[in-house]
């Protein structure tokens, strides 16, 4: 089914006048991965999903628009310096897009990629105000960003409280880093709007010891806890929440605190824990049939083939799918299969993700529909809430994709991006 649709898409591309380039030319997608170190358990499934999807396109469809894809993997170890080294080492290979899966690396690469004219896609991480494409011409963060996530969490709390959370206390347990501090401003603004009290509880890296924070939560009894964690911090936080018998249905993690890795160590106690997401979960999608046939069973999987269907594998696959669709859009715009990074950016800026397109790719209802434009590099900011079922050992969406609070976020994004533009002598605009 999916193969047929891809063939149709390929034929349409050729009919549109796309000329396939010589076999030697390839679309280069670097994969700045981390398969070693403390964050490897999260880096591996993401990278596997990213690479497996691109391998599928090569094996099933002959690449994108007749052009084969080359993935150059570079190990960052989630280390910012190594990430920059990886960028420098791979950018000369014709790299079309970078997805570093690290906010720290992203911040370092923004000026470099901008100077080099190579687009970056920081899906659900990185610098939130990069949504303003008129300032951040080479950086994209669709379909959702951190501030969207903070707003989604509050929206969900509003929903379960019939729209009134005034007088309630919401605690933010966050990784004490640039990443973890991202939602604070948004949550403070939302606190003013909705009248809740915000309790801030930072956790130092790596987050193995959180007794103080959870004793404080036990004493303060916040109505809800939002978590902004990564790596071991997530597992320890969920276990500590179980230990103090905090009601799991009131505990919501950002999407980087919502993988199987985070909940499994706590066992049954994690049942009911919630996490935000900007894509769907599980493996009940036609694309998985193709992934098994063309990639895993063919012995071409990037990893051991044991991560399929996990939350982070799906996210990596989703990132690859969005990159591939942007490349396809770029080919259509410019009438050539051999696209440059600048053309890739054009493709990303013209990306339209429709339900019809996702269904055609074997991913029906896998992610929110959204459009990207020059001024809006962040898409529509839609997100959903997933809940962990410990007995079934699976996540499931418990809400539809909903919007963030633009009335609060838009001014923040505008202010932050314009400050960046002023600091860096950037004249905002689309040319």
């Amino acid at each position: 089914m999916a193969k047929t649709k891809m063939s149709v898409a390929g034929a349409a591309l050729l009919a549109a006048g796309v000329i396939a380039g010589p076999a030697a030319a390839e679309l280069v997608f670097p994969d700045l991965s981390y398969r070693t170190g403390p964050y490897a358990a999260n880096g591996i499934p993401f990278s596997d999903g990213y690479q497996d999807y691109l391998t599928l396109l090569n094996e099933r469809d002959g690449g994108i628009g007749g052009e084969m894809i080359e993935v150059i993997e570079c190990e960052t170890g989630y280390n910012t310096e190594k990430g920059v080294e990886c960028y420098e080492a791979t950018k000369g290979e014709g790299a079309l897009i970078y997805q570093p899966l690290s906010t720290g690396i992203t911040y370092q690469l923004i000026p470099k990629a901008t100077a080099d004219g190579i687009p970056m896609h920081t899906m659900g991480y990185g610098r939130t105000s990069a949504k303003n494409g008129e300032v951040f011409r080479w950086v994209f963060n669709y379909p959702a960003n951190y501030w969207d996530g903070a707003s989604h969490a509050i929206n969900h709390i509003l929903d379960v409280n019939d729209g009134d959370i005034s007088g309630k206390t919401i605690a933010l347990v966050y990784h004490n880093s640039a990443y973890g501090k991202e939602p604070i401003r948004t949550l403070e603004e939302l606190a003013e709007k909705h009248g809740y009290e915000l309790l801030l509880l930072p956790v130092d890296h790596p987050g193995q010891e959180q007794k103080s924070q959870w004793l404080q939560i036990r004493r303060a009894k916040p109505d809800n806890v939002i978590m902004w964690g990564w790596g071991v911090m997530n597992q320890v936080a969920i276990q500590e929440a179980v230990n103090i018998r905090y009601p799991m249905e009131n505990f919501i993690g950002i999407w980087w605190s919502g993988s199987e890795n985070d909940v499994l160590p706590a066992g049954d106690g994690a049942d009911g824990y919630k996490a935000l997401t900007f894509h769907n979960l599980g493996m009940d999608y036609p694309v998985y049939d193709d992934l098994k046939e063309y990639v895993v069973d063919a012995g071409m999987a990037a990893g051991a083939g044991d991560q399929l269907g996990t939350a982070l594998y799906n996210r990596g696959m989703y990132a690859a799918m969005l990159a591939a669709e942007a490349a396809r859009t770029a080919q259509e715009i410019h009438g050539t299969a051999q696209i440059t990074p600048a053309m890739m950016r054009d493709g990303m800026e013209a990306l339209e993700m429709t339900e019809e397109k996702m269904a055609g790719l074997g991913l029906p209802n896998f992610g929110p529909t959204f459009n990207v434009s020059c001024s809006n590099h962040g898409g529509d900011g839609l997100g959903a809430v997933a809940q962990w079922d410990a007995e079934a050992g699976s996540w499931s969406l418990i809400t539809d994709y909903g919007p963030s609070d633009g009335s609060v976020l838009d001014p923040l994004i505008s202010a932050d991006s314009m400050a960046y533009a002023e600091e860096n002598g950037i004249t905002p605009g689309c040319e």
Partner: protein
Amino acid sequence: MPDQLLFAMEVFLNGLMAGVLYALVALGFVLIYKASGIFNYAQGVMALFAALTLVGIMEGQVPFSHLINAVFGTEIHHFGWHLPAVVAIVLTGVVMIALAWAVNRFIFRHLVGQEPIILFMATIGLAYFMEGVGDIMWGADIKKLDVGLPQGINTWIDESTYEIFGYGFFIDNLDLWATGIAAALVIALTIFSQYSKQGRALRAVADDHQAALSVGISLNYIWVLVWSIAGFVALVAGIMWGTKSGVQFSLSLIALKALPVLMLGGFTSIPGAIVGGLIIGVGEKLFEFAIGPLVGGATENWFAYVLALLFLVFRPQGLFGERIIERV
């Protein structure tokens, strides 16, 4: 009783429990340093490796399965057994003894008489090697570790303190177990050190390598012995920390928690590791409770080092460390 005082008492008790967990890690450092003068940078990774091995053996995971499958095109992952925790702990202990032998046979035997900094660098190499081997051997995924230790709030303490103070204290059952196990470990180590032949030999080597050699004590044997004991201590630490967070590669970072304990308690004293751990645990928790909210929180990591530095200023050898007197 004022609420703040009750909270402070609860924080104090939890600080003691956290300190025991820090001390468990510090103990491994002390044992090796005391016997060989080596500051074992790999102690945290040894805890990780031990915990990985324990889970792997319990779950019947085939070591190096990804590598084997990639090379030979096979599809083997599990032996198909699930061993009781006690059996797996014993088998892991055997692996740690084998590791101790290999470390001495292939590394430190060749470095006898070298400068301490060379030995330290060797342990850095060993740490990264073991981390890599652990990854290839058991995989990088997060593993749930359940050896039957209870976790969660101790209901008896909660209810008893509630009856007395009107506020139930939170004490984690796992922390209580850790305290009991650490106490048993220290008593066993003390008895072993004071009353066994090997223990006396170990102390002799710690006092003076040359003198110990001259009376026929095998340095190699003692080093293997002490690395084995440190390996067992690492296993205990790995079980406690791994039960809390799942067994994953960030476990190796627990060594960072041991450093201020060592600075405070001294590098050569087992009681120092325990008392140092307790002081650090209580100190950092109380500081976070009292001062943390005023300065934005997350004070524990740096305050532990400040506390240790303060002690260092007045007692450079640590609370229980041996005083260094060099006559010229």
